[in-house]
């Protein structure tokens, strides 16, 4: 029984780190994704094409590889002392910002031109049109693809164990070596499942909240 409690406590400790990666990634990748989506829709080519290339590279390579690049790259280049957790955050934020940007782009481009024009003839500024009229409609449209990304992110945090971040999966694997038991790894699934279950409920609630209007 005591080993069960030890494992549970260890996994809970890992869950804290997992949650930290999850929350910080969202906090930074959502606004950054919006900025990147503006860049990818820009009419200015010197902005648009570098951004498009960045999105292609980030979406076209494995997140695990990106983690390794940011985790070990600085050391190879002779830059010492970069915190591993910072490297993890850079990789996650950049990766998710690029995915989010494509979802934002789809949402923004899906809003009918008439909404912008109605705002313009009412004398609204471009920023007012975006924040007061467009954004709310974009949010409603992107909730389903976003909920997918959020759930994927919960599980992707487990990749951080490849560069020695002590999140749930790392803590579960630890017992394979120290105690020669495998079940903590299976048990860790419960924590992911619980986390994703709560997110699913939250998204369901938001969707219901936004159901008062169509369009």
């Amino acid at each position: 029984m005591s080993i069960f409690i030890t494992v549970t406590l260890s996994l809970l400790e890992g869950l804290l780190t997992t949650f930290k990666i999850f929350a910080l990634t969202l906090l930074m990748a959502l606004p950054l994704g919006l900025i990147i989506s503006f860049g990818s829709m820009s009419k200015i080519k010197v902005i648009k094409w570098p951004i498009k290339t960045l999105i292609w590279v980030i979406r076209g390579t494995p997140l695990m590889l990106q983690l390794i690049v940011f985790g070990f790259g600085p050391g190879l280049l002779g830059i010492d002392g970069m915190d591993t957790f910072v490297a993890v955050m850079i990789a996650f934020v950049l990766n998710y910002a690029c995915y989010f940007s494509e979802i934002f782009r789809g949402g923004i481009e899906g809003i009918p031109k008439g909404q912008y024009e109605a705002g313009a003839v009412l004398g609204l500024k471009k920023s007012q049109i975006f924040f007061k009229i467009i954004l709310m409609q974009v949010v409603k449209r992107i909730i389903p693809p976003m909920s997918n990304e959020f759930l994927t992110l919960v599980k992707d945090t487990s990749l951080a164990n490849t560069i020695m971040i002590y999140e749930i999966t790392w803590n579960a694997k630890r017992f394979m070596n120290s105690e020669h038991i495998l079940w903590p790894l299976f048990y860790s699934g419960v924590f992911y499942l619980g986390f994703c279950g709560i997110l699913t409920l939250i998204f369901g609630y938001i969707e219901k909240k936004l159901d008062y209007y169509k369009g």
Partner: protein
Amino acid sequence: MKILEIKNLRKSFGKTEVLKGVSFSMEKGQVLSIIGSSGSGKTTLLRSINFLEEADCGEIYVDGKCIYDGASTKKLTAAQIRENQLHFGLVFQSFNLFPQYSALENVMLAPKLLAKERPDFKHNKKEIYAQIEEEAKALLTRVGLADRMNNYPCELSGGQQQRVSIARALALNPKVLFFDEPTSALDPELTGEILRVIRDLASKDVTMVIVTHEIDFARNVSDRIIFMADGVVLEDGTPEEVIDNPKCAKTRAFLQKLNEN
């Protein structure tokens, strides 16, 4: 003084010239209808005057003041375009209400955002907002929607939505209110309620320009009618002159076709 004067307005999209030098003017309180077949440039004319498109050349005067001069080499800034747009109101064919806001919120949105630019906004925020709400409610009552103010666009019929959008345009007290085929997206039984609202506005001396296919309505409500074809104004006169005694063969052909349908 003329409230609106358009001189030689031209606009091309690529190689297609849609407006080939359109001129007209109108007095305060007048109702002007623009008729003509699809592709004659009516909608582009409205969009150019409302700065949704920038004309290639020509001049636009409001109350004698030049707000657009195509000969000027300086491009209008976003702030100038915005200022110009505030002279006018535009009611779209497809309403374009903001779906996430109730009817009342749709009407109040622009006045509330504009009020923030007033110097006394910080001191009198409450009073200003209360006044805006009162005016918005009065406008919605005027278009017959006193009991639907808190409904969202998706809960309203097409005719009701269009009436909200008329109230929304009126909320900024435009000098000229433009209608771009306001009944074309509506079922025939709903057009009557829109036409009633426009007729009521006409009786209150609201200056209006109406692009429409409803010839009988145009004849009834308008002080003047313009017939456009291929990007130019072919007729400009009273309803009797344009509809009953058209000068041009094209006008006669257009009116005849409408009668046949």
